[in-house]
């Protein structure tokens, strides 16, 4: 299909066809990272601004590598080095960024909705690299890519997502994305970590871990935020690990060929036992590898690559 979307803001706004296109293109991109010279000229002359208004290493580096492997010029603006934003309105921020004439703006922001608000005001394509507790579409897409590689398709798969759903943009984007592709999502976590009305995104909810992972094809563990102080949602990590940590024993409830995913960074011994994280079911590093290819695919499609590809 010809690519026509300007921005990647959330999973809700991507159709099944668009998701399939992204995953196909991403699969094709993987090979570039295996070459001795990991660079193609596709985005030569294009400017990609990485605007990270919240700390991030993994996602920022992944976008940085992706853009550079496509020969784009990459400018990183992080919260610490930016005088943008302090005391200015979002319109001001948008105008300032637009004035630099970027082709693609990759934005990470601590407040939900900021990428959408900026996207409506600037000409450049916007990729949401995570906003507040709203969405993290590139993470969901790389997760879908990783599952596709292992399972061949997404339709009908049973996917368990376990942990602090309330504060997880990764969970929201995965619920919407996987359910759109026909997978069945079950969430598990203590009720204090389950946001009201999450079922409306297309999933069912339990507070019993074993019920969620029973017969699952995919078990996705979320990071427990140790830094979430002042508003503790659980009495202790010890009790959390006991009730919701993924151990080899618990994993037996899932399908024998189940895969284990984690968006990182992991708290070994809390949400995931070390022997599970390092065991044969884990695809956690594949997720990271695929993240680069997936982001290359998005940069390619948003900078007009989709139209060229269609013409060939």
């Amino acid at each position: 299909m010809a690519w026509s979307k300007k921005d990647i803001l959330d999973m809700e706004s991507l159709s099944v066809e668009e998701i399939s296109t992204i995953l196909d293109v991403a699969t094709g991109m993987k090979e570039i990272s295996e070459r001795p010279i990991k660079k193609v000229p596709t985005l030569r002359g294009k400017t990609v601004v990485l605007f990270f208004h919240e700390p991030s290493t993994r996602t920022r580096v992944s976008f940085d590598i992706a853009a550079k492997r496509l020969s784009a010029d990459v400018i990183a603006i992080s919260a610490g080095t930016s005088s943008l934003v302090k005391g200015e309105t979002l319109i001001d921020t948008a105008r300032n960024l637009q004035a630099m004439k970027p082709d693609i703006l990759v934005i990470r922001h601590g407040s939900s909705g900021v990428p959408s608000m900026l996207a409506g005001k600037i000409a450049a394509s916007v990729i949401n690299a995570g906003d507040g507790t709203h969405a993290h579409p590139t993470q969901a897409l790389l997760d879908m890519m990783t599952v596709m590689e292992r399972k061949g398709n997404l339709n009908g798969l049973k996917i368990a997502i376990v942990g602090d759903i309330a504060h997880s943009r990764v969970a929201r984007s995965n619920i919407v994305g996987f359910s759109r592709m026909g997978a069945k999502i079950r969430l598990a976590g203590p009720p204090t970590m389950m946001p009201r009305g999450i079922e409306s995104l297309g999933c069912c909810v339990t507070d019993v871990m074993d019920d969620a992972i029973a017969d699952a094809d995919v078990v996705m563990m979320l990071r427990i935020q140790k830094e979430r102080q002042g508003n503790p949602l659980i009495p202790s990590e010890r009790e959390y690990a006991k009730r919701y940590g993924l151990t080899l024993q618990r994993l037996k409830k899932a399908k024998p060929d189940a895969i284990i995913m984690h968006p990182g960074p992991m708290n070994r011994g809390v949400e995931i036992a070390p022997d599970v994280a390092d065991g044969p079911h884990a695809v956690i590093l594949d997720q990271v590898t695929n993240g680069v290819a997936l982001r290359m695919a998005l940069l390619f499609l948003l900078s007009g690559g989709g139209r060229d590809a269609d013409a060939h």
Partner: protein
Amino acid sequence: MRTLIKNGTVIDPGHIHEIADILIEGSIVTRIDKHADMGRLTAPDTTESRIQPDHVIDAAGLWVVPGLMDMHVHLREPGEEYKETIASGISAAAAGGFTRICCMPNTRPVNDNRQITEFIIHESQKLASVRVLPVAAISKNLEGIEICEYGELMDAGAVALSDDGRPLVDSLLMRRALEYSKSMGLRIISHCEEPTLAKGVMNEGPAATAKGLSGIPNAAESIMVMRDIALSELTGVPVHIAHVSALESIRAIRDAKARGVSVTAETAPHYFTLTDTDVAAYDTHAKMNPPLRSEKDRDAVCQGLVDGTIDVIASDHAPHSRLEKEVAFDAAAFGIIGLETSLALSLRLVIKKVLTIEQLITKMALNPARILGLPCGISQGLSADLTIIDPDMPHVYSAETGFSKSRNTPFDGWKFTGRSVYTIVGGKIIFNL
């Protein structure tokens, strides 16, 4: 100066609802001639020929009602004049059909002392327009620690007490405020919000969850409504609940009224007009406190208006500039402007036959005055504070061309039927279309 308002449908609920001529001499209504009594068909202009007015308003087809009163307005002066001034707020009120507005004390400095109360009254009286009635703070600097000098504030002209914008968390202080204000007869207006539960930016539920925004549950409001009802029962002192939005609050107020507790309540037009799914994602012009609720809550607000549980419609006019609104949703200020849309939005309830026009006028003109112990109505000898409404006039509201200094409203561009065409205070036309 004699002004004759002729041929209008005069509606003062419980008193008159028929075509009549009203004569204003100076600032006072001096005659109300019902056409039915005068044999209008044979002598249509009898009044006019007899008394030779200086000015005649032909109100044929229009409603002539007691001057509307908005008992919940933020004027921002002193301190935040870039958002609204007393003068700009008054202009917006006059255009919206209001002859009286109560302004909340959360200015900078806070209206917790005689000087600020007197300043507001003085500044507004200079303009000789809408009557501005200051609401003073319950607690010093709205800090919820010590009560203010209510006697002084009453003497200066304050008409009620509220820490609006902030809940009064300390229940003992709320009790003391109720008890101490009793001798002054100043009504306590309570902003009900349990702060530990209210750490959110929109209504809790599927819409907030999908947008990744933190939610404010109904219980954050209703818990404190129930507390204030209990304290009103304990002390025997009336309490007025501001901006009611939640079904559970309305139930609690209804039950309290049924057992004779002296509790009154207001809601704002946005709570009977919009829900948390009606507005575009991350539109900070739909961010207010309490938040837009669910369909069930909106229905409950309408039902509360119909059955009298909710006594008053007030706008909670809360101007904010672009600096506070063109930012991330969770960082944006709470509040929307409402003086120029309140009547039009409320008239929609009459058009949809949810409320009768009498009920509407009762809630927008009479009840606010009665709750605060002020005169109201259209009667011979009373001040000529009148609003004339054209119930059929189509219009489109534009925030850009509005009178308020701020533009923070979700109703920009809305099409309405019915609006005020004359606003008259003390016999003087302060606004006409």
